[in-house]
């Protein structure tokens, strides 16, 4: 399987493991989409990279240890961003009633798998 195909199959696996997700975007740390199922991928990829970049910097400067994730929470849902290795970003959009604990567990696993490919 080509790298792109492998990434696509991970994307599919994420959506199967977490069917409540509204969208999934895998991006480079400089904001370019790699694989996704979002209608607005270019915009979301850039914002996720910015959020991760800022999150890492804040975490470092305020001595929080390695960044786990960055969460934006609105009335109608969550946007959660994880690092996928040094060069990748995994961003998930979830509904307001989502089980974040479960999402984190699955997402970290997938982020590690993505890190191997990116």
């Amino acid at each position, binding site marked *: 399987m080509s790298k792109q195909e492998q990434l696509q199959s991970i994307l599919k696996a994420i959506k199967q493991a977490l069917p409540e997700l509204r969208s999934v975007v895998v991006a*480079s*740390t*400089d*904001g*370019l989409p790699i694989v996704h199922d979002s209608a607005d991928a*270019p*915009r979301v*990829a*850039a*914002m996720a*990279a*910015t959020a*991760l*970049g*800022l999150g*890492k*910097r804040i975490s470092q*400067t305020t001595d929080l240890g390695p960044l786990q994730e960055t969460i934006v929470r609105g009335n109608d849902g969550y946007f959660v961003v994880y690092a996928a290795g*040094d*060069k990748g970003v995994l961003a998930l959009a979830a509904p307001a009633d989502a089980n974040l604990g479960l999402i984190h567990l699955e997402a970290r696993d997938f982020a590690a798998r993505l890190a191997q490919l990116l």
Partner: protein
Amino acid sequence: MEPLKVIITGPVGAGKSTLIRTLSETEVVDTDAAASEDIGKAMTTVAMDYGTLHLGDQLLYLFGTPGQERFDFMWDVLTEGALGMLMLVRGDRPEDLGPARRMLDYLLSQHPVPHVVGVTRQDRPPVWGPEEVALFLGLPKERVVGLNATDPKSAVQPLMRLLELMLAEEESRS
């Protein structure tokens, strides 16, 4: 006294981070990530660069924006409420002037911010100088200055021009 902010913007590789490093008295806080595209360097700003300058009892924040248009939401976030904006362009890369104009037109149609353009790389001809850049960007000549971003005495020129023009505008109004 309330701190003021000056925004440093411009296309990728124009020298924004370099300029802030030259002018800032504190160590510059950056949010760099590895560039996955070929932009001529390894790292690129994905959120902002941040430096400070104390002028008398006034604190000045210097914020650098990312250059790529996909980060245009950061251009807006950072430019909002700025004292002024410096756009940097490289004089030795005419192909960057289109994107620079697009960025400038966008920002100036959204934010009434005093602005000056700084043209870097003036040392190696053939090169676009301040006059040609002013013509292309549709700006009056006095708003475009040449500079060397690594030399503090030169790097401060666009900032001084910005303040001079603000002064001149106020004087002409009264």
